[in-house]
């Protein structure tokens, strides 16, 4: 049992490092597909991370959940293989292919042995280029998704998250869950799945990272073979999202002994000049595990929660600064008061020199530790490309952290932390809390 649960912290910053002479190469295939590569020959396998920008936010009107459904169907049969035959072929190669989708991208995480790399990639190619989307598989996976949606409707954290996103983003895709609703998913057809496939898997939105037992030339050939058959373009990218919420409290009644609260307001973009200052500030406020002000005040001093955390969430089309806490119904109001107070205090006063120093030490020291295995590094390489960071970014990243001053933090705290705009969505039966407006 893990002592401290970092509740639903989305990886916010995808940076990389040169832990020890890790050399990132940019590879361009003969057919023009770009990828970043780290050759790591000590273990005879390769991790390949492929992402298509746009992701679930490309769902068409009235078809919410189609892209998520399509993602779940990619490996449910391809070419002349039905879903069982496809899975058996993959197992026989001891390869793994993970298909996932989130608001801003669809991701494919593959790992395959050097000894049967060609076969493993031929099979993956079959899934990407010739997915069958058989009608019985469509119905089966729809059933699974409907089951998941139903369960999420009874999960306090999910209820809070979805309510908060709905209020924040309204009709923008960010305002609804990528899984869709039971109604929208039930109405999806095989044709909708085919449209979703064509909308998302296209070469003009493709990002690739590879780490492992493979060289640049081999990778180039592999990429052309694997991805060259995809169409050039897909659906147009989503519009910018508009932030719609005001400060206050929304109580969502739910019969449970402990209330879950998601709180926050607008955030800051990844390319904003003050992003690093905000990032360091958040380390002090709520991201720094046991050392953070919120953990100290809400958990360590008062025992009001098992975990409280905050995070920057800079998506492609809208930015949030969010936090989450769970506290018993009779104590959640107190936890919220403490959080508001800390928000105000940091907004007004900034951080202390010691806090800034500790945050920098942690962030710069933790940086090399992110290189935690081939698959993890492959993911980082793709994230860097999607954030349009330079390939030598790793060499300057810690300098950017170290350059942050107390004045920088004070400036960004005044700008970013707006206690009056904080909106708390509370799911449970909180005592002494009522919805505003």
């Amino acid at each position: 049992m893990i002592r401290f649960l970092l509740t639903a912290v989305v990886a916010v910053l995808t940076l990389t490092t040169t832990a020890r002479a890790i050399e990132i190469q940019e590879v361009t295939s003969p057919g023009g597909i770009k990828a970043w590569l780290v050759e790591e020959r000590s273990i005879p396998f390769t991790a390949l991370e492929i992402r298509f920008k746009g992701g679930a936010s490309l769902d068409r009107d009235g078809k919410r959940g189609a892209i998520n459904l399509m993602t779940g169907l990619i490996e449910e049969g391809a070419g002349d293989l039905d879903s069982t035959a496809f899975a058996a072929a993959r197992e026989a190669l001891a390869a793994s292919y993970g298909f996932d989708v989130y608001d801003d991208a669809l991701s494919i995480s593959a790992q395959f042995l050097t000894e049967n790399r060609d076969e493993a990639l031929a099979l993956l190619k079959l899934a990407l280029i010739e997915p069958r989307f058989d009608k019985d598989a469509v119905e089966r996976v729809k059933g699974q998704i409907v089951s998941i949606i139903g369960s999420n409707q009874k999960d306090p954290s999910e209820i809070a998250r979805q309510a908060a996103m709905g209020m924040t983003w309204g009709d923008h895709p960010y305002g609804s869950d990528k899984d869709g609703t039971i109604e929208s998913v039930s109405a999806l057809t095989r044709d909708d799945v085919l449209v979703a496939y064509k909308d998302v898997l296209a070469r003009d939105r493709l990002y690739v990272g590879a780490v492992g037992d493979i060289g640049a030339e081999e990778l180039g050939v592999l990429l052309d073979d694997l991805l060259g058959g995809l169409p050039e373009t897909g659906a147009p990218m989503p519009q910018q999202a508009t932030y719609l919420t005001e400060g206050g409290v929304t109580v969502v009644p739910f019969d449970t002994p402990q209330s879950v609260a998601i709180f926050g307001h607008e955030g800051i973009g990844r390319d904003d000049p003050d992003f690093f200052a905000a990032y360091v500030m958040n380390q002090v406020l709520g991201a720094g595990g046991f050392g953070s002000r919120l953990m100290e005040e809400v958990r360590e001093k008062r025992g009001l929660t098992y975990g409280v955390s905050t995070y920057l969430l800079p998506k492609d089309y809208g930015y949030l600064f969010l936090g989450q806490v769970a506290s018993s119904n009779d104590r959640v109001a107190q936890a919220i008061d403490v959080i508001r107070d800390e928000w105000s205090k940091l907004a007004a006063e900034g951080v202390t020199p010691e806090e800034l120093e500790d945050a920098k030490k942690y962030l710069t020291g933790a940086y090399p530790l992110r290189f935690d295995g081939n698959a993890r590094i492959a993911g980082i390489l793709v994230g860097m490309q999607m954030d349009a960071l330079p390939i030598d970014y790793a060499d300057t990243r810690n300098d950017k952290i170290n350059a942050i001053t107390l004045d920088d933090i004070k400036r960004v705290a005044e700008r970013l932390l707006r206690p009056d705009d904080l909106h708390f969505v509370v799911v449970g039966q909180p005592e002494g809390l009522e919805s505003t407006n």
Partner: protein
Amino acid sequence: MLRLTLFALTAAFSFPAAAAENVTTFKLENGMEAVVIEDHRAPVVVHMLWYKAGAADEKPGVSGIAHFLEHLLFKATDNMEAGEFSAVVEANGGSDNAFTSWDYTGYFQRVAADRLDLMMQMEADRMRNIRLTEEDIVTERDVILEERSQRTDSDPGALFGEQRRAAQYMNHPYGVPIIGWRHEMEQLDREDALDFYRTFYAPNAAVLVVAGDVDPAEVEVLANKYYGPIEPTVDLPERVRPQEPPQLAERRITFEDPRVSQPYVIRSYLAPERDAGDQETAAALTILADILGGSSATSVLGKALQLTEQKAVYTSAFYSGMNFDDTTFGVLIVPTPDLSLEQAEAEMDAVIAQFIEDGVDPDQLERVKTQIRASSIYENDNVSGLARRYGAALTSGLTVEDVQAWPSILEAVTEDDIIAAAKLVFNRDKAVTGWFQKPSEEVTQ
């Protein structure tokens, strides 16, 4: 294939251990065992200290004390202030945490390899030197009660699991939840914590696991320096927990909660665990779980109930042999909406009976073994996972040799072994069958 994440069941498949050449062991004079796993790809180290003491080693009436103590180890010692441990780790760019199970309690830090010295110094300090105030007890007890609220009381599936487990183990303390029963947690005090601490937090009940960019000889020097001087507990109790009596009658549970969205049937059978020098049955059960319910697309249950006939949205079989005492083997069916739990249970049982009659598909067994062999390559990418496996094994009654022999024991499992294991384990007298559903009035309305 979509993963239904609502069922966080034990992985059916435990991967074999790293190539033995990367692993070094030594033992200190005070009885502390140590395992070093080398991985020089990045200048990082994982330092873990495991105690052979978990929730199943608690005295009756103080359930949750092993886990509560784990929290309290982040408070003050003779040499450090409350919270200083984690603050120092973070100031060095590292991360740290801890975990409690029925058979062990573990503490770990992940830091740059040149900070190992400091981690050992601090971990050795809190093995014997904690200083608990009454205020620590009161505040942190609120935290663990909030943790129980968050992880268990807010989750009907977790409450259901707790009830099933209590029914499965009629006498063994595995039937008591790690977090503790709430009414006992509320009464836990400083003396309860110190009693557990003084007994079990000792070098002769501890296993050190260091994994990463380190030299085993240097690790041994550091271990001798920091852990070496600590006195062992001389009267460390032998690890004998109350054992199960003969289980002679099936237990059935119907758990109803308005928060249930997706009903399901789950059954667990009492099953043998991996024992030192005797892992063959556990190996057969491990592969049985994979064959029966490992993959929705190719497993026996998945093919029959999810693909051929769409009677389930999800099926699974699960087994974990890494236990000090008797473990369980489980099967699960999440039916499609038009099937009752009674029908679902009958369908699942029919498929299992047919499987025992038909025997194992040799092609499927070969694929499972191919993946086992491949995992000995992939697993080298995750040295923290390897460290965790050795720590769990050595605190669950196994030896380093057992961990290293495990892949070849899995490899030797035959089709007949799997069917024999199935016949052994599928005994309803030793089973708990649970139905998880909405309150009955809602079902019939």
